[in-house]
């Protein structure tokens, strides 16, 4: 169920250059699934006006806490990055449809491919997959070393590879270069990141089931404003999908890439 709540800041840490890990406490955590997102109002004033959609990186139902990881790039996220422990944040969520951890079977292997700020939602997914007895392989691409994060956390869950565009950490290049080199064995793939990466993955693994998480400029976040529309492929019934309410995660082959 979608609810609006004033969540409390439990912790906020800059875990990489301009990348923040924010832990929020509130009741809506109970309804969260990996791959879903929250729509955050960073200020009670009109400046900035709209909410910011941010993916959910980790869910702790027992403590009623969730973690979101975001890049403080624009005005809105910069304001969010200044929130202190104990501050309240207006959150609408959880929104959208997340990753289906059930698509991977026990004893099987899942390949998780992330790019930059698309990596966070894969963390909760990996935790849930591992809890279900699914082996996970993580392949993540970043621009440069100082924006990488969560190497330890992912390594604790499974085989983890980093690649950077400038080669300052891990292999040099893009995730696709690394995937070509690694030739990983897996049953299903999950991905979140820039469009060229998602496109390449669909082409790389035409035989494997896969799930892709998309990003698009949003207005309302709940499907009413028609801002975040994506064209669908010919083999889909609908003419279009809304990233916010039909996605952000879609099975591969649904969205025209």
């Amino acid at each position, binding site marked *: *169920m*979608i609810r*609006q709540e004033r969540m409390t800041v439990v912790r906020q840490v800059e875990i990489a250059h301009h990348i923040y890990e924010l832990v929020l406490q509130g009741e809506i955590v109970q309804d969260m699934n990996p791959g879903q997102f929250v729509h955050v*109002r960073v200020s009670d004033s*009109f*400046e*900035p*006006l*709209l*909410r910011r959609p941010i993916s959910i990186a980790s869910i702790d139902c027992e403590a009623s806490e969730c973690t979101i990881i975001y890049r403080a790039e624009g005005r809105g996220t910069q304001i969010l990055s200044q929130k202190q422990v104990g501050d309240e944040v207006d959150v*609408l969520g959880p929104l959208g449809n997340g990753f289906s951890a059930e698509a991977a079977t026990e004893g099987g292997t899942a390949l998780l491919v992330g790019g930059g700020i698309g990596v966070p939602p894969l963390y909760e997914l990996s935790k849930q997959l591992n809890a279900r007895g699914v082996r996970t392989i993580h392949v993540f691409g970043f621009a440069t070393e100082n924006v990488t994060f969560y190497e330890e956390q992912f390594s604790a869950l499974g085989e983890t590879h980093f690649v950077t565009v400038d080669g300052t950490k891990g292999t040099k290049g893009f995730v696709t270069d690394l995937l070509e080199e690694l030739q990983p064995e897996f049953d299903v793939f999950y991905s979140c990141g820039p469009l060229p990466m998602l496109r390449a993955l669909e082409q790389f693994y035409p035989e494997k089931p896969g799930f892709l998480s998309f990003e*698009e*400029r*949003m*207005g*309302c*976040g*709940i*499907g*009413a*404003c*028609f*801002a*975040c*529309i*994506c064209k669908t492929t010919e083999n889909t019934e609908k*003419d*279009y999908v809304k990233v916010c*309410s039909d996605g952000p995660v879609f099975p591969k082959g649904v969205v025209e890439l």
Partner: protein
Amino acid sequence: MSRINVELPGLDLKNPIMPASGCFGFGREYAQLYDLSVLGSIMIKATTVETRLGNPTPRVAETPAGMLNAIGLQNPGLEKVMKQELPFLEKYDVPIIANVAGTLTEDYVQVAESISTAPNVKALELNISCPNVKHGGITFGTDPVIARELVEAVKAVSKVPVYVKLSPNVTDIVEIAKAVEAGGADGITMINTLVGMRLDERTGKPVIANGTGGLSGPAVKPVAIRMVYEVYKAVNIPIIGMGGVTNAQDVIDFMSAGASAVAVGTANFVDPFVCPNIIEALPAKLEELGVKHIKEIIGRSHR
């Protein structure tokens, strides 16, 4: 006794608050959040004869205290709206104002004739002011003669009162308001969005794929208030005011300027509960002002 009910042609409203067209879809999304029966009315998303897929993305861009949009009248088309969307809304005790759009006069006439027969559609809102489509829309709203002729054509077929949504993108909005009144309009809704543009800081190119978009949100409120104020003086038909409404005070402002009811647009995206919140806050606001009934404040700026 209610202190906030208002009556308008075709519309017996529990309260003067309604979500504006294009900001509320066909109600389904917000129905997950609250009981739509609390609303005075719902202005549904513009309906055209055929399915429209709208403009390329990005379609929205944030601006200081506002946003630009160029959705492009995306909607499932008349048949689906009649068979799927309007019946869904029938379970709520709320009159619907159907926003009607098109490219040619015949399109408006066809949609109006059909959609005005739906049992819960109590009024039409003629969209002659959409700035985001290449043909139709705003071209009907910027020429008083064409606007009047369109209203006459739609009035001839509509089974319910016809309101006309005016564009602020004109030299003299009073002239257009008078023209649609002369054409037989039962009411005016105003204002639609102001045409604007935001540039990407790095490339210098427009952020919105369509180039221009319609500006809405608190930033446009002073423009909207001024226009409602001017039109109220010039016409004898009621006005539903809109433009940057986010709270009960904004509602009081619009009604003081001359609006008989008020629509809430962009604020629904910021706070999806804004409409019920405003409705709840209105009686206390009247108390503060020492007013018994909300109707007493309509047009008080002019007295």
